């Protein structure tokens, strides 16, 4: 299969579909036409796109947790427990399903049943299959999204969309580079064209499914322009396949001005690129992820990190915020801790949402910086792809033009090295092979030098490591002590 950014034709899709639904036993239950009918039977209040549109109109920031456990009844109980404290529900998929290891997921389900507690870190939707997934949707009153990290998420999409989930996270870059080790980028991009086309088919039948590229990538000091480039590319790829409802994401960096500039520039840049590519009929929203790096073990301190993210999300005007829990440092939280994260977030959103973060030259400068960086990198991506953004992406990643810091994928260059500046904004310590203009590189270098001077040490990889662990050690900036 040769990758191009072109809408998949029906024959290609259908022949591929035969393989997809045959790849695990539960696939055979999926009937697209019946799925469309089922989706149409859902009330507006359970449709992700409608709830997002209303929030966007009202300038509200919606709350969404992460949550998923091995067994269906327990999963339903978990989501019902969280439902009152949030606006949008997730079903976080387990790590075996993400790698299409359905046998291992089956083992995890069996062992979880035996143990009486979930031994999987998420909900194995493929193994449970269409009817059980519908039982989840039917037990809830709010829209449910599939959140995962799956390079080949075709069967998962077939099952969950037919089952009434109304939003689907992921993308060919954002669910490969931070989540896989050896999956070729061409392959994951192609598989996500399938998912996007499936969403496009639903759209053509009057069923709007929300599509959300995964914003935070490795979640570790990712400069805004890096995740923005990926988000915009995945948005363009999704639009091409007929998706109409796109939510672009960004993970909290920790410096308030930079975080606000990031969300504001993300929306503006996305509209710019989508419209330049000829798309006008789409619904755009943004998602802000509370801090995705290491958390403090101390729960009071974890609440502080959660609240800082909630405040930034509201001040930035993000359409929704993905919420962490006070158990974050210990992995999968209890349902009570999960709810506490939502409650702290709710209070913060409610105390901040009407407030306006004033425009200022500092904020303007930050917005313009991100825009210039994104435009530089994306220009190179289009150039490398000779106008085709899918081909350009594969080549740009291979060339280190698109480079995600601290990602596991071997296709990723990993030469770009970020570090915080003296006010905690994420800057570039080593640009690797990312083609940024000299004055932008000088700006980053000056900011990093300012910090190095304040700390009376050279900027080095040690400074980067210090930054990675800073928040879990109760600091924003990893200063020497």
């Amino acid at each position, binding site marked *: 299969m040769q990758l191009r950014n072109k809408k998949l034709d029906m024959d290609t899709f259908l022949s591929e579909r035969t393989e997809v639904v045959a790849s695990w036993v539960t696939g055979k239950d999926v009937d697209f036409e019946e799925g469309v009918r089922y989706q149409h039977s859902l009330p507006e209040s359970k449709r992700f796109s409608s709830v997002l549109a209303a929030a966007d109109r009202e300038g509200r920031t919606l709350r969404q947790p992460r949550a998923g456990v091995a067994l269906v009844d327990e999963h339903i109980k978990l989501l019902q427990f969280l439902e009152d404290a949030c606006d949008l529900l997730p079903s976080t998929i387990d790590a075996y399903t993400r790698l299409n290891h359905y046998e*291992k997921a089956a083992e995890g389900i069996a062992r979880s049943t035996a143990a009486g507690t979930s031994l999987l870190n998420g909900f194995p939707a493929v193994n449970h299959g269409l009817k059980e997934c519908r039982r989840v949707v039917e037990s809830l009153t709010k829209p449910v999204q599939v959140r995962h990290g799956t390079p080949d998420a075709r069967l998962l999409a077939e099952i969950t969309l037919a089952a009434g989930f109304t939003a689907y996270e992921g993308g060919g870059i954002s669910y490969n580079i931070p989540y896989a080790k050896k999956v070729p980028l061409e392959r994951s991009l192609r598989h996500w064209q399938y998912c996007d086309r499936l969403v496009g088919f639903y759209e053509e039948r009057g069923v709007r499914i929300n599509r959300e590229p995964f914003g935070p990538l490795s979640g570790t000091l990712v400069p805004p322009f890096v995740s923005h480039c990926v988000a915009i590319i995945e948005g363009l790829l999704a639009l091409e396949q007929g998706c109409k409802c796109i939510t672009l994401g960004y993970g909290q960096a920790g410096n308030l001005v930079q975080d606000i500039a990031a969300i504001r520039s993300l929306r503006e840049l996305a509209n710019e690129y989508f419209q330049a590519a000829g798309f006008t009929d789409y619904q755009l929203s943004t998602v802000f992820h509370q801090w995705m790096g290491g958390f403090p073990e101390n729960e009071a301190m974890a609440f502080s990190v959660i609240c800082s993210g909630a405040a930034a999300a509201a001040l930035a005007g993000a359409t929704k915020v993905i919420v962490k829990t006070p158990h974050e440092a210990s992995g999968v939280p209890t349902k009570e801790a999960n709810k506490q994260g939502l409650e702290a977030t709710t209070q913060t959103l409610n105390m901040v949402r009407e407030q306006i973060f004033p425009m200022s030259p500092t904020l303007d400068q930050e917005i313009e910086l991100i825009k210039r960086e994104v435009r530089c990198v994306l220009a190179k991506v289009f150039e490398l792809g000779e106008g085709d953004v899918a081909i350009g992406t594969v080549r740009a990643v291979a060339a280190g033009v698109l480079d995600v810091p601290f990602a596991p994928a071997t296709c990723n260059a990993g*030469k770009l090295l970020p570090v915080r500046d003296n006010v905690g904004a994420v800057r570039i310590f080593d640009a690797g092979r990312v083609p940024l203009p000299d004055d932008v590189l000088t700006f980053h270098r000056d900011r990093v030098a300012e910090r190095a001077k304040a700390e009376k040490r050279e900027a080095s990889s040690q400074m980067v*490591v210090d930054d990675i662990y800073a928040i879990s050690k109760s600091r924003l900036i990893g200063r020497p002590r």
Partner: protein
Amino acid sequence: MNYLTKNRRTQGANEDMSETNVILGVIGSDCHAVGNKIIDTVLTGEGFRVTNLGVMVSQDEFIDAAIEVGAGAILVSSIYGHGEIDCAGFRGRCIERGLEDIVLYVGGNLVIGKREFSEVESMFKDMGYDRVFPPTVDIKSVAQSLRQDIVARQ
């Protein structure tokens, strides 16, 4: 992806240990890469010869690498909570394949949910791991134990 290892061996290198091979990796279907890179950097800085298999490593891949380089220890990370499944039977598999005396460490968020660490520690020690670490452990202190345990096994 060598930027984090630029400063290797510049400090704290222990020449006695410079020939000690250890295998490092994140087990199972776990893609958490950041901590893995840092552990590599610190252990290398402490004088170990680290063979880092990165993320998503199977038990047999760990054992293959350990046999290949004659490693004194295998350091298993698991961050995503599936440790209870992924790590089971590892000691037995090592013995089957002739690594009776290899030092076996495991660390990370090893189980689903917040549980008392002492409980998690017992569970993994019962599985045959020599030491069990929480995600917050200071890697330099791990290096110290590692030195002692490898010497004791030889």
